[in-house]
């Protein structure tokens, strides 16, 4: 009934299991495998029948659930949402499909496990282990074979062949490395420039209209993008990742940084919205203190003091954009950012 491996070690183990348990002298000796204790199903055919019915019932339930799955798929519309306590508003279809599939699968598993536990033999058997390492003769044979193979190849003797082969094998992957070159363009000075330039109007992100100084009230945070950047543009995401701007109005006397005041327009200051830590957009503004908070790792910048970092893991202040007003009274940029926006990098300097 068992493989050779098992039956070999059986007699000995059983002898200890049923034989002298009190090994003379050593109170901690291995008493050997205990005798098998029969389960109720092993001795009572009625109990075994009950288990059989339970297993069959589980398998039957699984079949019913699969029929339920198919029925749900056909019956429930994909967009129907209902309220089911305590799960809230859920898609009926998802709910029904998941439950029926889950029950169908679970019952197969439960049936199989119950079958194994109650009806299949639970006699524990030992199997011998064999050492993983090869015996010395095998090792000696392998080493001899290898030496012979190596000698026949002349690998050790003909050094010229060997060395040129190593050279060729070492060089050939370079082709693969070369092929990776076009994975991306080179950084060059791309990270130093954004779409902002002298004369570009500041466009309100929400209304898509150019901003006037009057649109900005003390205490509000406004987001802006450069004129000419449309959501439909192919490189919109890449451009906005650098050009996103936030504007606040601070009473000029509250601005502590001299340059900040110079670069502002009547207390309206424009800063890069991209956090200098690892690039999340900043979104929270505390009106009283003029602090802005990055929601990603809580870096906090003081917009009334050159946007310096006052808390969190960011390493440097947010870059400021120099702004003014054009002839028609709209806010405009007076140039690009003077330093790279976003996370720091080696060439940033």
């Amino acid at each position, binding site marked *: 009934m068992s493989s050779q491996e098992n039956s070999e070690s059986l007699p000995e183990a059983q002898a200890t299991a049923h034989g002298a348990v009190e090994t003379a002298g050593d109170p901690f000796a291995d008493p050997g495998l205990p005798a098998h204790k029969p389960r109720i199903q092993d001795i009572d055919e009625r109990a075994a029948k009950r288990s059989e019915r339970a297993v069959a019932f589980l398998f039957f339930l699984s079949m019913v659930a699969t029929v339920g799955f198919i029925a749900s798929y056909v019956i429930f519309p994909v967009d129907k949402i209902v309220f089911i306590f305590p799960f809230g508003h859920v898609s009926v279809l998802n*709910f029904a499909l998941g439950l029926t599939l889950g029950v169908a699968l679970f019952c197969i598993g439960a049936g199989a496990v119950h079958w194994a536990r109650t009806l299949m033999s639970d006699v524990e058997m030992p199997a011998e282990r064999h050492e993983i390492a090869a015996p010395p003769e095998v090792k000696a044979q392998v080493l001899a074979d290898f030496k012979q193979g190596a000698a026949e190849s002349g690998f050790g003797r003909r050094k010229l062949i060997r060395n040129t082969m190593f050279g060729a094998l070492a060089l050939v992957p370079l082709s693969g490395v070369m092929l990776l070159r076009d994975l991306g363009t080179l950084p060059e000075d791309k990270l130093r420039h954004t779409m902002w330039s002298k004369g570009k109007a500041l466009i309100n992100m929400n209304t898509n209209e150019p901003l006037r100084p009057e649109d900005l009230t003390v205490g509000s945070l406004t987001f802006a993008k450069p004129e000419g950047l449309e959501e439909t543009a192919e490189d919109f995401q890449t451009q906005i990742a650098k050009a996103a701007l936030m504007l606040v109005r601070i009473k000029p006397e509250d601005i502590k940084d001299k340059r900040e005041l110079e670069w502002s327009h009547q207390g309206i200051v424009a800063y890069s919205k991209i956090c200098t830590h690892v*690039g999340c957009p900043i979104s929270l503004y505390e009106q009283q203190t003029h602090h802005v908070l990055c929601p990603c790792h809580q870096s906090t910048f003081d917009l009334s003091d050159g946007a310096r970092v006052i808390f969190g893991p960011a390493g440097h202040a947010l870059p400021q954009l120099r702004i003014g007003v054009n002839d028609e009274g709209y806010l405009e940029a007076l140039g690009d950012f003077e330093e790279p926006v976003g996370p720091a990098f080696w060439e940033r300097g």
Partner: protein
Amino acid sequence: MSTTTDARREAPAGERIADWADGRLGIYSLAKANMRKIFPDHWSFMLGEICMYSFIIIILTGVYLTLFFHPSMNEVVYDGSYVPLQGMHMSEAFNSTMHISFDVRGGLLIRQIHHWAALIFLAGMFVHMMRVFFTGAFRKPREVNWLFGFLLFVLGMFTGFTGYSLPDDLLSGTGVRFMEGAIMSVPIVGTYLSFFLFGGEFPGGDFVARFYSVHILLLPGIMLGLMVAHLILVFYHKHTQFAGPGRTNKNVVGMPLLPVYMAKAGGFFFLVFGVIAVVAAIASINPIWAIGPYRPDQVSTGAQPDWYMGFSEGLIRVMPGWEINLWGHTLVLGVFIPLVIFPLVLATIAVYPFIESWITGDKREHHIADRPRNAPTRTAFGVAWITWYMVLLIGGGNDLWATHFHLSINVITWFVRIAFFVAPVLAFVATKRICLGLQRRDAAKVLHGRESGIIKRLPHGEFVEIHEPLDANARYKLTAHEQYKPAEIGPTVDENGVARKISRTQKLRAKLSKGYFGEGNQIPKPTAEEYEEITSGHGHH
């Protein structure tokens, strides 16, 4: 009576098919060795199975998702059936994920099963790894398999990360941006790496397609190979087992593959799949429609990665924002240091088995699983590592802790910074003490028996609790573990009185060995003499 040809004609169809296959594949020899292979039973041995089954579930559901998912960042305007997003600009990737969720019948279920299975897969691997660690199942001959398992865990993290980045939603995009920022912090080559990964500037139009091939082919392919190798080695080494009567280092005791283990393990696959399907039915995961498509200038508050990436989040959140500007270059230590610690945290647990085997110098095979208390220093190290990991997980959710428990972010950040260094040490000391206490209790049980709960009054009025002596089985179980002696450096002078050179590493090893096995670092097992003395007379109180 019948001739051989007759016999062959009469053989049942199954046997004839098996004969056919045997003649070509040699299946009978294979089955002879394996069909009745013995597997030991213990609940903790099911953890590895959970991993294997969730991986299979992930592959099945993942293939289904590829039938509908479009790995493209081309911009489209949404006109699907989810009204709130209609008219919005989004990538095709997001659009097709919306399509899977709202227009493909059962699509949402499969998406949610895929994601839940990924979470369970990673959690399963973590706990499974800890099981192997705390029972010392990584010892010879299983070190290589420990590394395979560890690699699976690490690759699983990255497969998960690339997976949840695919829908190109606001949350995952934030995670990708985080990764870009981290790569950019690498000195000298960081900017180039980032440009090569994203095909230019972030986010560009390539990364979803690139992540896609990594997510569905490259990493799962490697993982499948590793998993097969892992299982072959489990089969080849045979399972470890806990010591017990009749269970020794030279055998494995349990039930045969056919039928018991096959039924239990096969059934367990369906149990795992069934539970995950029910979870996917009732608990939504990654509801991208509520999050919206990615925009580099927008963010949702409370952004959190999947749990297995949480510890890296913790690292980056609590690190002070150090930046050094020198000679026109920037060293972004505030991001680069966490990026370096991230693999170090993982490597710490991965290399432990090799350190332990160097300290013990033990070259023998070990097939008996240790009870964690019987290896106090190892157990303490493991708990210290988990503590370290958990501290970082807490750091990764510092904003959530702050809002839920009304604490200041500042307090939590400083707590994590200090705990990063201190908590593992405390955990180490506490765990070691607990282990030694448990060892003492085991020794007492062996010598004096177990407390029966029955109180007896002695003639002179004293109350004592009756201790029942243990039977031979229990005694064996509690004394079966081996105890090492600390390694000795040996005499510092040789037999000729010449000073012997003792290398630094030798000294270090002796010191560590004392810390592991020296006096006070393990409780000596009761000896037969002690036992005889106590049981042969006055011993019982």
